[in-house]
C-alpha cells in the first residue's frame, strides 16, 4: 500500500488487516483555496467543480480522534475524485 494512513482512520490494527484494507487513504497533492479550504488543484489536475463537501468527526471520545473535511470534486479531465483534508494532523488524502 502506498502512502500512509491518515488520522488512524481504520481502527483495525493487525498488519494483515491493514494490508488487506480497502479504500485506504492515499496521500494526494492538493492546492486549496486559503479562504474556504476548497481544493483548486488535485494531483496536478485543475478542479472544475465541487460536487459535495462534508465533515466527518469520529472517535472524539478516544485518544485518536478523527476529523476530516471531505470534498467530492470533478477535475478538468472529467474524473470524479474524493479527497479529504485531515484537520487534526494536516495533509490531504484521496480516497477513491
Amino acid at each position, binding site marked *: 500500500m502506498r502512502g500512509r494512513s491518515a488520522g488512524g482512520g481504520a481502527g483495525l490494527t493487525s498488519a494483515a488487516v491493514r494490508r488487506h*484494507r480497502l*479504500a485506504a487513504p492515499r496521500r494526494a497533492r492538493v492546492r486549496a483555496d486559503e479562504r474556504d479550504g476548497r481544493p483548486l488543484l488535485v494531483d496536478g489536475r485543475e478542479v472544475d467543480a465541487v460536487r459535495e463537501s462534508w465533515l466527518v468527526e469520529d472517535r472524539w471520545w478516544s485518544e485518536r480522534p478523527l476529523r476530516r473535511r471531505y470534498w467530492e470534486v470533478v477535475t478538468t479531465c472529467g474524473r470524479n475524485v474524493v479527497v479529504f483534508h485531515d484537520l487534526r494532523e494536516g495533509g490531504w488524502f484521496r480516497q477513491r
Partner: protein
Amino acid sequence: MVVCVLIPRFQLTVAVGDREELLGSPAALAPEPGREARIGEVSLAAEAFGVRAGMPLGEALSRCPQLTLVPPDPAGVADAWERLLVRLESIGAAVAPERPGLASFAAQGLVRLHGGTLERVLAAARTALRHPARIGAGPSRFCALAAATRARARRPQIVLGDERAARDYLAPLPVALLRGRDETAALPEALARLGVETLGELAALPRSDVADRFGAPGLLARELAQGRDGSLRPREAPERLEEELELPEALSGAQLDRALGLLVDRLLARHERRGRTLRAVVLAATLVEGGTWREQVPFREALSDPTRMRLALAPRLALLPAPAERLRLAVVRFGPAASDQRSLLDEAAAERRERLREGVRQARAAAGPDAALRVLAVDPDSRVPERRAVLTPFE
C-alpha cells in the same frame, strides 16, 4: 538391511559418452541451459583442483582454468538410469531411486530368493547391473550409502547389526558424507567451519544446539549420524510409453509446435494407454549442437485432451537452448481413466463452485495465500470509507 548401489559420476560418464579420455582429465558437467550457473558432477582430476559438484561456474574455472565443460545429457542420463533400475528390479528388488547413480533397496525379502545369504543378494545385484558399481549394505539408508562410498568396485562393504552398529560405523567417517543427501548437502562446509569433522562428533552434539544453528536439515543430519533414517520409498513398477520424432531440419516456431502436436496425437493414440489420462510427461530433445535437453511437465490435472496438452507443452519448447534434431514425448505418470460421465442431476452450480475452488487452489499454489481474496463487509454503514470493508481469504 538396506542395500545401496552407488555409481560415482554417473551423469558425467553418460554425458562424456565415447570420449572416455575426458574422465582422466579435469572435466565437469556444464550448467544446464536456463538453470543456475553451477557445474554438475566433476571428474577425479578436477576434484584434485578443489572443484566440487554444485560449485559456481566462475569459481570452478578460477580454481582450474583447464577445466573441460561437458554439455549435460539429461535425456541420455534418464534413459541409462532407467535401464539400470530395470536390471536391478529384475532380481526382485523394490528399488528406491534417490538420484541418477544412487539407488537403494531392502534386502530382507531377497535373501531366500538368492541362496540364503546377503552376499549372494549383492552378487546377484552386481551381475544384473552389468555396470561397475559400489555396493554397500547397512541397517539404515544413510549407513548403506556410507558403506557404498567406502566399498571397492568388486568388494561390497557390509555393516551388520542394528542402529547402534550403524552409529559406531558412521562415527569416524567425515561429515562430507552428508553431501550424499539433498536435504543435508549444504551442511558439511558449515560443520567443518565449526570444527565438527566427523559424524560421531555431530551425533554427540546436543539436539537443541543443532536445531538452533542448522534447523531441520541439522536435525536430520544428526539423526543420520546416529544411525537412524527414514524408510525406503520404492518406486512403482514403471510403464514405458513414449513417442519420438526425428526432425528433418532445425525447426522453430509454428513448425516446432506442429511437430509437438504430432507427438501428442501419436502418444494419445497408443493402445497401451488404455483410455487413461496423463498426469505428467517428459519432453526431451536431442540438440543439433550435441547434448540433450529434458523437461518434466506435470499437468495441473490429469489430461487426455490433445488441445490442452499442447497448450501446456508449447511454452516449454521456448526453453529449448538450441535447435533440436529429435523430439521425444514420454509419459511419466498416468492418471485415472478418462471419463466424461454426465451426472444424473443437473449440478451445474456445484460444478462451477468446484472449478472455482480448483482455480483458487492453483492461484494460491502459484502466487501464495494472498492470490485469491474476497471482500468482507466489516462495517458497511461507516462514515469512514476504509472501515467499511477488508479483503479476506477466499475460503
